[in-house]
Structures are given as C-alpha cells and as structure tokens.
C-alpha cells in the first residue's frame, strides 16, 4: 500500500516541507478537530483565494495549506485530517497526531462543534497535554443557537486555561477574533495556565518517578509529562513516531528504561495493568470533558435529544 513509516508519521515531517517555511518568518498554524466540524470551511474562510492544496509526498491522505494575512503578518494555515483522538487508530489520525505532536506548529487550533461540545473537548484536552499553544475555536455557533444551545466561552476558556473563540465559519463570523487570539498566542505565549488532568495517586506517582529521566532525554519543545504517560501506557505507535522524530529510541535509553521498569513495578503493585491504565486515563479525560461541558453548556428545551437525526460518525 506504500504507507510506510517513512511516508507517514513523523517521517513525513522530516521531509522539511513545513520546517523550511518556518524559517522564513511565517508562523505555522495547525487546524485540527473532529471530522465534520466545519474545519475546511473555516480553513477556506481564513485563507480565501490564497489557498493551495498540497499533497504530502507518499500520502493518500492530503493536508491543505494556505496563507492567511492578518495585520501585516502571514500565517501558514495547515488543515490537518480530522481526528477524534490523539490515540491514533488510522493513518489519517496518525498524520494529525504527528503534526500536532512533532510538527512544531506555532499555534494549534482545535476546531470544535458547538452543537456537541462535550465530545469535541476530548481532542482539545488531549492536545493541551501535548502543548500549551492551543486555541479552542468553537465553530457552528449559529447551528448551536438554532438548537437553543448556548456556551459560556469565557468560562470555557478559564476552565481549560486556553483562549476560546466562538465562530460561525459559514457566515465568516468570529474569524477576526480567532486570528487575534492566534496572533496573540504566537507572538507572546502567555503563562501556562492550561488545565492539567491528573490521573489519580498511583499513576501520578509513576509519572513523577519517570518524568525527570524523560525530561533529560527530550528536547525542550516536547512535553515530558505527556511522553512519560505514553511510555507508561506503552503506546507503541506513538513511541515509534517519537523515535523517528528524535532519531533515537527513548525506550532503550538506560536511564529511562530503568525508571520505566520501576514505575511499571509500582503500578503492578497496585494492580494497574497496561490496558487498565489506558482505560483509567481515557476515563479521566472523558469525565473531565463531561464536567466542563456541564458547566459551560446550557440547553434550553430538549435540544440534544431532539436534534435532527444526522449521523455524526459511522463506525466502520
């Protein structure tokens, strides 16, 4: 099929297509989000006629790139494939994950669907574990309004510790405010206030044990807590991408492998196996999405249940 480690994953990021542009003072903005949230409409609205689609070498999945001018700065907007999660389950999701995690975008915009915010927060929270340079774009605000769903964006922003901007990309509403938020974040990253999800005493103890060794081995732009968590859960595909990005395998680093073994023993001691560990992590994130959504989303009338019966996702 031609989808090899080199042609997908971090391998393709190393083909420098994006990094060379980075050197010419253009800021890179990744547009990520679940499928069907109006991401491409937003992309077109932001880039206008400057859009050109670029086929990444060796890929069947394409990512469009376009230029957005805002206040005499130009931003390269990268429309990355829609994904529900950074725990990649498909080739497209792997591309999306690798771009967010290792592509070093100056800002990552998570585009969310205002009509079902809770589900979309999952990706947002997974992304803020990777990087603090995230803007949440709550799109389809017009649709939400029709369904009598209102969202307290200010509270949402405070809860997540990242800027949150409401847009209706179809009618180009909110795009300026979104670009303002992107520009502010790109120019002067504010103090890191992002919501940190904690996974309970046992897992946190294992992370604390592992993290210093991981931090020593990683370049500064990669979050050591996040990598520690992935090492603990043994996310093989992600670790392979990380290895190819770093050009070395962290799991064979003597300092790390020793700590990883100790952390594993600690978790085994408390009967937390790997599958269990993943369940616990996902559960914590999903529960956090649930509680944040409960605080910020107000639905007048039976909006959610009475929604039109459009299928959001067909699981194949």
């Amino acid at each position: 099929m031609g989808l090899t480690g080199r042609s997908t994953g971090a391998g393709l990021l190393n083909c420098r297509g994006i990094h060379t542009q980075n050197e010419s003072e253009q800021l890179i903005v990744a547009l990520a989000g679940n499928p069907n949230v109006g991401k491409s409409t937003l992309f077109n609205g932001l880039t206008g006629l400057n859009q050109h689609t670029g086929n990444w070498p060796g890929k069947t999945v394409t990512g469009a790139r376009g230029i957005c001018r805002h206040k005499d700065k130009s931003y390269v907007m990268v429309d990355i494939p829609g994904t529900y999660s950074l725990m990649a389950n498909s080739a497209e999701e792997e591309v999306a994950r690798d771009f967010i995690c290792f592509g070093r975008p100056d800002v990552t915009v998570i585009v969310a669907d205002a009509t079902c915010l809770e589900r979309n927060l999952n990706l947002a929270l997974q992304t803020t574990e990777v990087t603090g340079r995230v803007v949440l774009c709550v799109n389809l605000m017009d649709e939400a309004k029709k369904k009598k769903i209102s969202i307290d964006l200010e509270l949402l922003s405070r809860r997540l510790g990242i800027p949150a901007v409401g847009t209706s990309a179809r009618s180009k509403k909110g795009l300026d405010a979104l670009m303002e938020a992107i520009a502010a974040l790109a120019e002067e990253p504010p103090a890191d206030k992002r919501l940190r999800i904690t996974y309970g005493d046992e897992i946190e103890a294992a992370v604390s044990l592992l993290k210093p060794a991981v931090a020593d081995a990683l370049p500064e732009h990669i979050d050591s807590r996040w990598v520690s968590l992935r090492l603990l859960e043994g996310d093989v595909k992600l670790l392979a991408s990380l290895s190819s990005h770093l050009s070395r395998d962290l799991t064979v680093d003597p300092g790390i492998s020793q700590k990883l073994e100790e952390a594993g023993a600690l978790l085994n001691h408390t009967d937390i196996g790997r599958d269990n560990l993943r369940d616990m992590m996902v559960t914590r994130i999903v529960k956090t999405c649930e509680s944040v959504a409960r605080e910020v989303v107000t639905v007048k009338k039976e909006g959610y249940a009475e929604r039109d019966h459009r299928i959001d996702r067909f699981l194949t």
Partner: protein
Amino acid sequence: MNNLYNGQIPLNMLPVGKKAVVTSLTSDGVNRRRMLDLGIIDGTEIEPLYKNPSGNPVAYLIRGAVIALRSDASERILVSIL
C-alpha cells in the same frame, strides 16, 4: 429479554427508545480504544435512536452525538437498562 450477565445486556439487544448505561466493555486492543475515544466508558448513557431496516447498523445517541455502530461492535458493550 434475556438478562445474560447479572442484569446487563449487550448493547445490540437494547430496543430503540430505551435508555441504558454502560457497565463494561468486553473488547480489547484497538477496538476498545475506539469505543473509549467515542466517550463510551462505564456510566455513559446510550440510547438507540433508529435502526437500519436490516437491523444493522443502529444509530445511537452517545454524549450528544449520533453514532452508528454495527452489531459486532455493540455486542461488546454491556449495558444496564435505565
């Protein structure tokens, strides 16, 4: 309806219009992860909205989103009827 496992039934046996909560997932590996990514965890409320005339797949309301699951996925989600 048969209550196969202590009052739990597989999701594919839940009739349209009845609400239930997830009590456990019996899948593993990638399939389990996909379910988790959809927000299907212990305690998640699920309601079948409508069926394909052939009975498969079924559209479910899960956390405010409508998701179509085939029975090979839904039979691995155990629920208890509310």
